[in-house]
Protein backbone atom coordinates (compact mmCIF):
# COMPACT_ATOMS: atom_id res chain seq x y z
CA UNK A 1 0.00 0.00 0.00
CA UNK A 2 2.73 2.44 0.99
CA UNK A 3 4.58 1.45 -2.18
CA UNK A 4 1.47 2.33 -4.20
CA UNK A 5 1.20 5.78 -2.66
CA UNK A 6 4.93 6.12 -3.33
CA UNK A 7 4.29 5.53 -7.02
CA UNK A 8 1.54 8.14 -7.05
CA UNK A 9 3.82 10.57 -5.21
CA UNK A 10 6.54 9.97 -7.79
CA UNK A 11 4.07 11.18 -10.42
CA UNK A 12 2.87 14.14 -8.39
CA UNK A 13 3.74 16.43 -11.31
CA UNK A 14 1.08 14.71 -13.41
CA UNK A 15 -1.51 15.11 -10.64
CA UNK A 16 -0.44 18.72 -10.16
CA UNK A 17 -0.94 19.57 -13.82
CA UNK A 18 -4.33 17.83 -13.68
CA UNK A 19 -5.19 19.85 -10.58
CA UNK A 20 -4.19 23.09 -12.32
CA UNK A 21 -6.54 22.27 -15.21
CA UNK A 22 -9.35 21.39 -12.81
CA UNK A 23 -8.87 24.71 -10.99
CA UNK A 24 -8.79 26.59 -14.29
CA UNK A 25 -11.91 24.83 -15.58
CA UNK A 26 -13.85 25.29 -12.35
CA UNK A 27 -12.57 28.82 -11.71
CA UNK A 28 -12.98 30.30 -15.17
CA UNK A 29 -16.09 28.19 -15.77
CA UNK A 30 -17.82 29.35 -12.56
CA UNK A 31 -16.85 32.97 -13.12
CA UNK A 32 -18.14 33.02 -16.70
CA UNK A 33 -21.25 31.07 -15.65
CA UNK A 34 -21.90 33.70 -12.97
CA UNK A 35 -21.54 36.53 -15.49
CA UNK A 36 -23.79 34.77 -18.01
CA UNK A 37 -26.11 33.76 -15.17
CA UNK A 38 -26.44 37.43 -14.21
CA UNK A 39 -27.69 38.18 -17.72
CA UNK A 40 -30.02 35.18 -17.47
CA UNK A 41 -31.36 36.50 -14.15
CA UNK A 42 -31.90 39.95 -15.70
CA UNK A 43 -33.91 38.27 -18.45
CA UNK A 44 -35.86 36.21 -15.90
CA UNK A 45 -36.74 39.46 -14.08
CA UNK A 46 -37.47 41.38 -17.28
CA UNK A 47 -40.79 43.10 -17.83
CA UNK A 48 -41.24 41.63 -21.31
CA UNK A 49 -43.17 38.36 -20.92
CA UNK A 50 -41.77 36.98 -24.18
CA UNK A 51 -38.17 37.42 -23.02
CA UNK A 52 -38.96 36.17 -19.51
CA UNK A 53 -40.85 33.07 -20.57
CA UNK A 54 -38.49 32.05 -23.37
CA UNK A 55 -35.43 32.33 -21.11
CA UNK A 56 -37.30 30.52 -18.33
CA UNK A 57 -38.00 27.69 -20.78
CA UNK A 58 -34.33 27.52 -21.79
CA UNK A 59 -33.21 27.46 -18.15
CA UNK A 60 -35.66 24.68 -17.27
CA UNK A 61 -34.63 22.69 -20.33
CA UNK A 62 -30.92 23.07 -19.51
CA UNK A 63 -31.42 21.94 -15.93
CA UNK A 64 -32.99 18.70 -17.19
CA UNK A 65 -29.99 17.75 -19.36
CA UNK A 66 -27.40 15.43 -17.73
CA UNK A 67 -24.09 17.31 -17.70
CA UNK A 68 -22.33 14.40 -19.38
CA UNK A 69 -24.76 14.59 -22.32
CA UNK A 70 -24.10 18.30 -22.72
CA UNK A 71 -20.33 17.72 -22.71
CA UNK A 72 -20.79 15.03 -25.39
CA UNK A 73 -22.94 17.33 -27.51
CA UNK A 74 -20.51 20.25 -27.31
CA UNK A 75 -17.48 18.09 -28.10
CA UNK A 76 -18.86 15.50 -30.53
CA UNK A 77 -22.08 17.12 -31.74
CA UNK A 78 -21.14 20.73 -32.53
CA UNK A 79 -18.42 19.83 -35.09
CA UNK A 80 -21.20 18.48 -37.32
CA UNK A 81 -22.58 22.04 -37.27
CA UNK A 82 -19.15 23.30 -38.22
CA UNK A 83 -18.21 24.45 -34.70
CA UNK A 84 -14.94 22.88 -33.57
CA UNK A 85 -13.50 23.30 -30.07
CA UNK A 86 -10.38 21.72 -28.63
CA UNK A 87 -11.00 19.44 -25.63
CA UNK A 88 -10.34 22.05 -22.97
CA UNK A 89 -12.49 24.75 -24.63
CA UNK A 90 -15.29 22.27 -25.27
CA UNK A 91 -15.23 21.24 -21.60
CA UNK A 92 -15.16 24.86 -20.46
CA UNK A 93 -18.01 25.79 -22.79
CA UNK A 94 -20.12 22.92 -21.45
CA UNK A 95 -19.49 24.04 -17.85
CA UNK A 96 -20.36 27.67 -18.62
CA UNK A 97 -23.56 26.92 -20.56
CA UNK A 98 -24.78 24.34 -18.07
CA UNK A 99 -24.10 26.37 -14.95
CA UNK A 100 -25.29 29.70 -16.35
CA UNK A 101 -28.78 28.21 -16.15
CA UNK A 102 -28.27 27.29 -12.47
CA UNK A 103 -26.61 30.60 -11.59
CA UNK A 104 -29.40 32.48 -13.34
CA UNK A 105 -32.02 30.64 -11.32
CA UNK A 106 -30.07 31.16 -8.06
CA UNK A 107 -29.71 34.91 -8.68
CA UNK A 108 -33.35 35.26 -9.70
CA UNK A 109 -34.34 33.70 -6.38
CA UNK A 110 -32.23 36.17 -4.39
CA UNK A 111 -33.39 39.04 -6.59
CA UNK A 112 -37.08 38.33 -6.00
CA UNK A 113 -36.43 38.58 -2.25
CA UNK A 114 -34.63 41.94 -2.59
CA UNK A 115 -36.90 44.67 -1.18
CA UNK A 116 -37.91 47.15 -3.93
CA UNK A 117 -37.03 50.05 -1.59
CA UNK A 118 -33.33 50.07 -2.50
CA UNK A 119 -33.99 50.19 -6.23
CA UNK A 120 -36.60 52.88 -5.69
CA UNK A 121 -34.13 55.02 -3.75
CA UNK A 122 -31.51 54.47 -6.46
CA UNK A 123 -33.93 55.53 -9.21
CA UNK A 124 -34.84 58.65 -7.30
CA UNK A 125 -31.14 59.52 -6.97
CA UNK A 126 -30.68 59.32 -10.73
CA UNK A 127 -29.32 55.78 -11.13
CA UNK A 128 -30.34 53.99 -14.31
CA UNK A 129 -29.21 51.35 -16.75
CA UNK A 130 -26.03 49.38 -16.15
CA UNK A 131 -24.84 51.54 -13.21
CA UNK A 132 -28.09 50.80 -11.38
CA UNK A 133 -27.48 47.07 -11.72
CA UNK A 134 -23.77 47.17 -11.00
CA UNK A 135 -23.82 49.49 -8.00
CA UNK A 136 -27.19 48.97 -6.32
CA UNK A 137 -29.04 45.81 -7.39
CA UNK A 138 -26.35 43.16 -7.91
CA UNK A 139 -24.12 43.60 -4.81
CA UNK A 140 -26.80 42.75 -2.22
CA UNK A 141 -28.10 39.93 -4.44
CA UNK A 142 -24.63 38.41 -4.78
CA UNK A 143 -24.09 38.64 -1.04
CA UNK A 144 -27.43 37.06 -0.24
CA UNK A 145 -26.85 34.31 -2.79
CA UNK A 146 -23.19 33.65 -1.86
CA UNK A 147 -23.81 30.38 0.06
CA UNK A 148 -25.89 28.92 -2.77
CA UNK A 149 -23.41 30.15 -5.39
CA UNK A 150 -20.68 28.48 -3.30
CA UNK A 151 -22.59 25.19 -3.40
CA UNK A 152 -22.87 25.51 -7.15
CA UNK A 153 -19.12 26.14 -7.48
CA UNK A 154 -18.51 22.92 -5.52
CA UNK A 155 -20.84 21.16 -7.93
CA UNK A 156 -18.83 22.62 -10.82
CA UNK A 157 -15.56 21.34 -9.31
CA UNK A 158 -17.01 17.84 -9.09
CA UNK A 159 -18.55 18.05 -12.57
CA UNK A 160 -15.15 18.78 -14.12
CA UNK A 161 -14.35 15.10 -13.44
CA UNK A 162 -16.85 14.14 -16.16
CA UNK A 163 -14.69 15.97 -18.69
CA UNK A 164 -12.14 13.14 -18.71
CA UNK A 165 -14.49 11.35 -21.12
CA UNK A 166 -13.80 14.02 -23.72
CA UNK A 167 -10.09 13.70 -22.87
CA UNK A 168 -9.66 16.98 -20.98
CA UNK A 169 -6.43 16.47 -18.97
CA UNK A 170 -7.95 17.39 -15.61
CA UNK A 171 -7.42 15.82 -12.18
CA UNK A 172 -9.51 12.66 -12.62
CA UNK A 173 -7.94 12.14 -16.03
CA UNK A 174 -4.47 12.40 -14.47
CA UNK A 175 -5.32 10.01 -11.63
CA UNK A 176 -6.84 7.58 -14.06
CA UNK A 177 -3.82 7.63 -16.32
CA UNK A 178 -1.47 7.00 -13.36
CA UNK A 179 -3.56 4.10 -12.10
CA UNK A 180 -3.85 2.47 -15.53
CA UNK A 181 -0.12 2.74 -16.21
CA UNK A 182 1.08 1.44 -12.83
CA UNK A 183 -2.09 -0.32 -11.65
CA UNK A 184 -2.40 1.62 -8.39
CA UNK A 185 -6.14 2.51 -8.49
CA UNK A 186 -6.71 2.90 -4.75
CA UNK A 187 -3.77 5.22 -4.13
CA UNK A 188 -4.26 7.23 -7.34
CA UNK A 189 -7.97 7.87 -6.79
CA UNK A 190 -7.54 8.56 -3.06
CA UNK A 191 -4.92 11.17 -3.91
CA UNK A 192 -7.32 12.77 -6.41
CA UNK A 193 -10.19 12.71 -3.91
CA UNK A 194 -7.99 14.39 -1.31
CA UNK A 195 -7.20 17.17 -3.77
CA UNK A 196 -10.89 17.64 -4.70
CA UNK A 197 -11.68 17.78 -1.03
CA UNK A 198 -9.03 20.47 -0.41
CA UNK A 199 -10.41 22.52 -3.32
CA UNK A 200 -13.95 22.33 -1.96
CA UNK A 201 -12.79 23.30 1.53
CA UNK A 202 -11.15 26.35 0.00
CA UNK A 203 -14.44 27.34 -1.62
CA UNK A 204 -16.32 26.76 1.65
CA UNK A 205 -13.84 29.00 3.42
CA UNK A 206 -14.29 31.75 0.83
CA UNK A 207 -18.06 31.55 1.15
CA UNK A 208 -17.78 31.82 4.92
CA UNK A 209 -15.75 35.03 4.52
CA UNK A 210 -18.46 36.53 2.30
CA UNK A 211 -21.17 35.37 4.70
CA UNK A 212 -19.42 37.07 7.60
CA UNK A 213 -19.16 40.28 5.60
CA UNK A 214 -22.85 40.01 4.71
CA UNK A 215 -23.78 39.39 8.35
CA UNK A 216 -22.34 42.79 9.29
CA UNK A 217 -24.68 44.42 6.79
CA UNK A 218 -27.89 42.72 7.92
Amino acid sequence: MIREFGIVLAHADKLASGLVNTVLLAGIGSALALVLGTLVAMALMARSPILRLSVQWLVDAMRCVPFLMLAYIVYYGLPSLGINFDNFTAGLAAIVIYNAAYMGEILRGAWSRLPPDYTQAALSFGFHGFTLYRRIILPPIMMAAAPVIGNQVIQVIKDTAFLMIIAVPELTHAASSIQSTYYVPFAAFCAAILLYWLLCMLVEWGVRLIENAAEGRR
Partner: protein
Amino acid sequence: MNESNPMHQTPQELIHQDVIPQDLPVLRIHGISKSYGAHLVLDDISLQVMKGQTVCLLGPSGSGKSTLLRCVNWLEKPDHGQIYLNGQRVGMRGSGGIAMSASELAAMRGRIGMVFQHFNLWPHLTVLGNLIEAPVHVQKRPRAEVTAEAEALLERVGLIDKRDDYPAKLSGGQKQRVGIARALAIKPDLLLFDEPTSALDPELVGEVVAVMKVLAQQGMTMLVVTHEMGFAREAADEVILMDRGKVVEKAAPEVFFGAPKMERTRQFLQRYVGAA
Protein backbone atom coordinates in the same frame (compact mmCIF):
# COMPACT_ATOMS: atom_id res chain seq x y z
CA MET B 1 -21.53 85.01 -15.73
CA ASN B 2 -23.54 85.65 -18.83
CA GLU B 3 -24.03 89.37 -19.30
CA SER B 4 -27.02 89.16 -21.59
CA ASN B 5 -30.48 89.90 -20.29
CA PRO B 6 -31.89 86.80 -18.63
CA MET B 7 -35.20 87.45 -20.38
CA HIS B 8 -33.52 86.60 -23.66
CA GLN B 9 -32.29 83.23 -22.49
CA THR B 10 -34.05 79.95 -23.02
CA PRO B 11 -35.38 78.18 -19.91
CA GLN B 12 -32.67 75.57 -20.58
CA GLU B 13 -29.99 78.22 -20.02
CA LEU B 14 -31.72 79.67 -16.99
CA ILE B 15 -31.79 76.45 -15.00
CA HIS B 16 -28.07 75.94 -15.31
CA GLN B 17 -27.30 79.30 -13.80
CA ASP B 18 -26.71 79.71 -10.11
CA VAL B 19 -29.15 82.56 -9.92
CA ILE B 20 -32.73 81.68 -10.65
CA PRO B 21 -35.15 84.54 -11.13
CA GLN B 22 -37.03 85.24 -7.89
CA ASP B 23 -40.44 84.71 -9.41
CA LEU B 24 -39.70 81.30 -10.92
CA PRO B 25 -40.78 78.59 -8.49
CA VAL B 26 -38.32 75.75 -7.88
CA LEU B 27 -41.26 73.37 -8.11
CA ARG B 28 -44.51 74.01 -9.89
CA ILE B 29 -47.18 71.33 -9.92
CA HIS B 30 -50.02 72.14 -12.28
CA GLY B 31 -53.30 70.26 -12.46
CA ILE B 32 -51.97 66.80 -11.55
CA SER B 33 -54.45 63.94 -11.59
CA LYS B 34 -53.85 60.25 -11.16
CA SER B 35 -56.03 57.23 -10.67
CA TYR B 36 -55.42 53.58 -9.93
CA GLY B 37 -58.18 51.86 -11.87
CA ALA B 38 -61.44 53.49 -10.84
CA HIS B 39 -59.91 55.04 -7.74
CA LEU B 40 -58.96 58.70 -8.21
CA VAL B 41 -55.88 59.25 -6.00
CA LEU B 42 -54.97 62.77 -7.11
CA ASP B 43 -57.61 65.15 -8.40
CA ASP B 44 -56.38 68.27 -10.16
CA ILE B 45 -53.65 69.24 -7.68
CA SER B 46 -51.72 72.47 -8.17
CA LEU B 47 -49.12 73.95 -5.90
CA GLN B 48 -45.73 75.57 -6.01
CA VAL B 49 -42.65 75.81 -3.88
CA MET B 50 -40.48 78.92 -4.16
CA LYS B 51 -36.73 78.91 -3.60
CA GLY B 52 -35.91 78.55 0.09
CA GLN B 53 -39.48 77.70 1.04
CA THR B 54 -40.64 74.77 3.15
CA VAL B 55 -44.08 73.54 2.19
CA CYS B 56 -45.76 70.91 4.37
CA LEU B 57 -48.35 68.51 2.99
CA LEU B 58 -50.70 67.26 5.66
CA GLY B 59 -53.66 64.95 5.45
CA PRO B 60 -55.11 61.68 6.65
CA SER B 61 -53.62 58.39 5.42
CA GLY B 62 -54.66 57.61 1.88
CA SER B 63 -55.23 61.24 0.97
CA GLY B 64 -52.70 61.03 -1.88
CA LYS B 65 -49.82 62.96 -0.29
CA SER B 66 -47.15 60.34 -0.88
CA THR B 67 -48.37 59.64 -4.40
CA LEU B 68 -48.11 63.35 -5.19
CA LEU B 69 -44.57 63.42 -3.86
CA ARG B 70 -43.64 60.42 -5.98
CA CYS B 71 -45.09 62.12 -9.03
CA VAL B 72 -42.68 65.01 -8.53
CA ASN B 73 -39.66 62.85 -9.42
CA TRP B 74 -41.67 60.67 -11.77
CA LEU B 75 -41.47 57.51 -9.64
CA GLU B 76 -45.21 57.58 -10.38
CA LYS B 77 -46.49 58.97 -13.65
CA PRO B 78 -49.46 61.30 -13.33
CA ASP B 79 -52.32 60.80 -15.80
CA HIS B 80 -52.84 64.53 -16.35
CA GLY B 81 -51.10 67.78 -15.53
CA GLN B 82 -47.55 69.06 -15.58
CA ILE B 83 -44.66 69.33 -13.17
CA TYR B 84 -41.85 71.84 -13.61
CA LEU B 85 -38.52 71.90 -11.83
CA ASN B 86 -36.98 75.37 -12.14
CA GLY B 87 -39.12 75.93 -15.18
CA GLN B 88 -38.15 72.69 -16.87
CA ARG B 89 -40.81 70.09 -17.51
CA VAL B 90 -40.37 66.85 -15.49
CA GLY B 91 -40.87 63.52 -17.25
CA MET B 92 -41.68 65.00 -20.65
CA ARG B 93 -39.52 66.64 -23.28
CA GLY B 94 -40.00 70.31 -23.97
CA SER B 95 -43.67 71.22 -23.97
CA GLY B 96 -44.79 67.62 -23.58
CA GLY B 97 -45.96 64.88 -25.85
CA ILE B 98 -42.74 62.89 -25.84
CA ALA B 99 -41.58 61.10 -22.70
CA MET B 100 -38.05 61.72 -21.45
CA SER B 101 -35.51 58.98 -22.12
CA ALA B 102 -34.25 56.95 -19.16
CA SER B 103 -31.05 59.00 -18.98
CA GLU B 104 -32.84 62.35 -19.27
CA LEU B 105 -35.21 61.28 -16.52
CA ALA B 106 -32.30 60.11 -14.38
CA ALA B 107 -30.53 63.47 -14.82
CA MET B 108 -33.76 65.23 -13.77
CA ARG B 109 -34.21 63.01 -10.73
CA GLY B 110 -30.59 63.61 -9.77
CA ARG B 111 -31.49 67.23 -9.00
CA ILE B 112 -34.19 66.23 -6.53
CA GLY B 113 -33.20 64.72 -3.18
CA MET B 114 -35.64 62.32 -1.57
CA VAL B 115 -35.97 61.15 2.02
CA PHE B 116 -38.05 58.02 2.49
CA GLN B 117 -40.35 56.84 5.26
CA HIS B 118 -38.42 53.58 5.57
CA PHE B 119 -35.03 55.25 4.96
CA ASN B 120 -34.18 52.96 2.01
CA LEU B 121 -30.47 53.18 2.75
CA TRP B 122 -28.38 50.83 0.62
CA PRO B 123 -27.49 47.97 2.98
CA HIS B 124 -24.27 46.89 1.25
CA LEU B 125 -22.67 50.32 1.62
CA THR B 126 -21.34 52.04 4.73
CA VAL B 127 -22.85 55.30 5.97
CA LEU B 128 -20.20 57.25 4.06
CA GLY B 129 -20.68 54.93 1.06
CA ASN B 130 -24.39 55.74 1.02
CA LEU B 131 -23.61 59.47 0.94
CA ILE B 132 -21.02 59.42 -1.82
CA GLU B 133 -22.65 56.74 -4.01
CA ALA B 134 -24.82 59.00 -6.19
CA PRO B 135 -22.39 61.96 -6.35
CA VAL B 136 -19.56 59.65 -7.49
CA HIS B 137 -21.43 57.22 -9.74
CA VAL B 138 -24.28 59.35 -11.06
CA GLN B 139 -22.91 62.88 -10.97
CA LYS B 140 -19.37 61.61 -11.75
CA ARG B 141 -17.78 64.06 -9.34
CA PRO B 142 -14.26 63.44 -7.93
CA ARG B 143 -14.34 61.01 -5.02
CA ALA B 144 -11.99 63.03 -2.77
CA GLU B 145 -14.08 66.20 -3.09
CA VAL B 146 -17.34 64.31 -2.55
CA THR B 147 -15.94 62.45 0.46
CA ALA B 148 -14.88 65.71 2.13
CA GLU B 149 -18.34 67.18 1.59
CA ALA B 150 -20.01 63.99 2.82
CA GLU B 151 -17.96 64.08 6.01
CA ALA B 152 -19.01 67.68 6.57
CA LEU B 153 -22.65 66.62 6.11
CA LEU B 154 -22.22 63.78 8.61
CA GLU B 155 -20.84 66.34 11.06
CA ARG B 156 -23.94 68.44 10.48
CA VAL B 157 -26.32 65.59 11.28
CA GLY B 158 -24.11 64.47 14.18
CA LEU B 159 -23.11 61.09 12.78
CA ILE B 160 -19.47 61.48 11.80
CA ASP B 161 -18.51 58.72 14.26
CA LYS B 162 -20.80 56.30 12.36
CA ARG B 163 -18.98 57.03 9.08
CA ASP B 164 -17.78 53.45 8.50
CA ASP B 165 -20.73 51.59 10.02
CA TYR B 166 -23.28 49.75 7.94
CA PRO B 167 -26.89 50.99 8.08
CA ALA B 168 -28.00 47.79 9.83
CA LYS B 169 -26.05 48.88 12.93
CA LEU B 170 -27.89 52.21 13.27
CA SER B 171 -31.04 53.18 15.14
CA GLY B 172 -34.06 54.39 13.15
CA GLY B 173 -33.36 58.02 13.98
CA GLN B 174 -29.73 57.66 12.94
CA LYS B 175 -30.74 55.93 9.71
CA GLN B 176 -33.08 58.77 8.84
CA ARG B 177 -30.42 61.39 9.57
CA VAL B 178 -28.14 59.47 7.19
CA GLY B 179 -31.05 59.44 4.72
CA ILE B 180 -31.25 63.24 4.94
CA ALA B 181 -27.47 63.63 4.59
CA ARG B 182 -27.56 61.32 1.56
CA ALA B 183 -30.21 63.49 -0.06
CA LEU B 184 -28.18 66.65 0.67
CA ALA B 185 -25.00 65.09 -0.76
CA ILE B 186 -26.31 65.40 -4.32
CA LYS B 187 -26.72 69.18 -3.77
CA PRO B 188 -30.37 69.04 -4.78
CA ASP B 189 -32.46 71.96 -6.03
CA LEU B 190 -35.35 70.50 -4.06
CA LEU B 191 -35.69 68.10 -1.13
CA LEU B 192 -38.70 65.80 -0.87
CA PHE B 193 -39.58 64.20 2.46
CA ASP B 194 -42.02 61.28 2.43
CA GLU B 195 -43.26 60.91 6.02
CA PRO B 196 -39.69 60.93 7.34
CA THR B 197 -40.65 60.28 10.96
CA SER B 198 -43.62 57.93 10.56
CA ALA B 199 -41.56 54.74 10.89
CA LEU B 200 -39.65 55.95 13.96
CA ASP B 201 -40.17 55.17 17.62
CA PRO B 202 -41.65 58.27 19.27
CA GLU B 203 -38.47 59.02 21.24
CA LEU B 204 -36.43 59.12 18.01
CA VAL B 205 -38.66 61.58 16.15
CA GLY B 206 -37.12 64.62 17.82
CA GLU B 207 -33.59 64.18 16.50
CA VAL B 208 -34.84 63.92 12.90
CA VAL B 209 -37.23 66.86 13.20
CA ALA B 210 -34.41 68.95 14.69
CA VAL B 211 -32.25 68.33 11.60
CA MET B 212 -35.17 69.20 9.30
CA LYS B 213 -35.85 72.43 11.15
CA VAL B 214 -32.25 73.54 10.74
CA LEU B 215 -32.46 72.82 6.99
CA ALA B 216 -35.65 74.86 6.72
CA GLN B 217 -34.04 77.76 8.57
CA GLN B 218 -30.99 77.58 6.32
CA GLY B 219 -33.16 78.13 3.27
CA MET B 220 -33.30 74.62 1.78
CA THR B 221 -36.23 74.27 -0.62
CA MET B 222 -38.37 71.47 0.80
CA LEU B 223 -41.68 69.74 0.17
CA VAL B 224 -42.51 67.70 3.25
CA VAL B 225 -45.23 65.10 3.66
CA THR B 226 -45.59 64.67 7.39
CA HIS B 227 -47.81 64.03 10.38
CA GLU B 228 -45.57 66.18 12.59
CA MET B 229 -47.85 69.13 13.30
CA GLY B 230 -45.16 70.78 15.43
CA PHE B 231 -42.75 70.82 12.51
CA ALA B 232 -45.38 72.20 10.13
CA ARG B 233 -46.34 74.93 12.60
CA GLU B 234 -42.78 76.04 13.32
CA ALA B 235 -40.84 75.42 10.13
CA ALA B 236 -43.27 75.66 7.22
CA ASP B 237 -43.80 78.73 5.05
CA GLU B 238 -46.99 77.20 3.77
CA VAL B 239 -49.16 74.33 4.92
CA ILE B 240 -51.41 72.37 2.60
CA LEU B 241 -54.14 69.99 3.70
CA MET B 242 -55.01 67.21 1.29
CA ASP B 243 -58.00 64.89 1.56
CA ARG B 244 -59.22 62.28 -0.90
CA GLY B 245 -56.84 63.45 -3.59
CA LYS B 246 -57.84 67.12 -3.40
CA VAL B 247 -56.27 70.21 -1.87
CA VAL B 248 -58.61 71.27 0.93
CA GLU B 249 -56.76 74.30 2.23
CA LYS B 250 -53.51 76.08 1.53
CA ALA B 251 -52.38 78.70 4.03
CA ALA B 252 -49.53 80.15 6.06
CA PRO B 253 -49.03 78.10 9.26
CA GLU B 254 -50.39 80.87 11.54
CA VAL B 255 -53.62 80.92 9.55
CA PHE B 256 -53.77 77.18 9.02
CA PHE B 257 -53.39 76.31 12.70
CA GLY B 258 -54.86 79.53 14.11
CA ALA B 259 -57.90 80.34 11.99
CA PRO B 260 -58.45 77.82 9.22
CA LYS B 261 -61.09 78.74 6.64
CA MET B 262 -62.39 75.27 5.88
CA GLU B 263 -64.53 73.12 8.14
CA ARG B 264 -62.61 70.02 6.94
CA THR B 265 -59.34 71.58 8.17
CA ARG B 266 -60.85 72.21 11.60
CA GLN B 267 -61.98 68.59 11.81
CA PHE B 268 -58.54 67.39 10.77
CA LEU B 269 -56.77 69.60 13.30
CA GLN B 270 -59.11 68.52 16.07
CA ARG B 271 -58.36 64.89 15.38
CA TYR B 272 -54.59 65.15 14.86
CA VAL B 273 -53.43 68.08 16.96
CA GLY B 274 -55.95 67.34 19.65
CA ALA B 275 -54.55 63.85 19.98
CA ALA B 276 -50.89 64.91 19.78
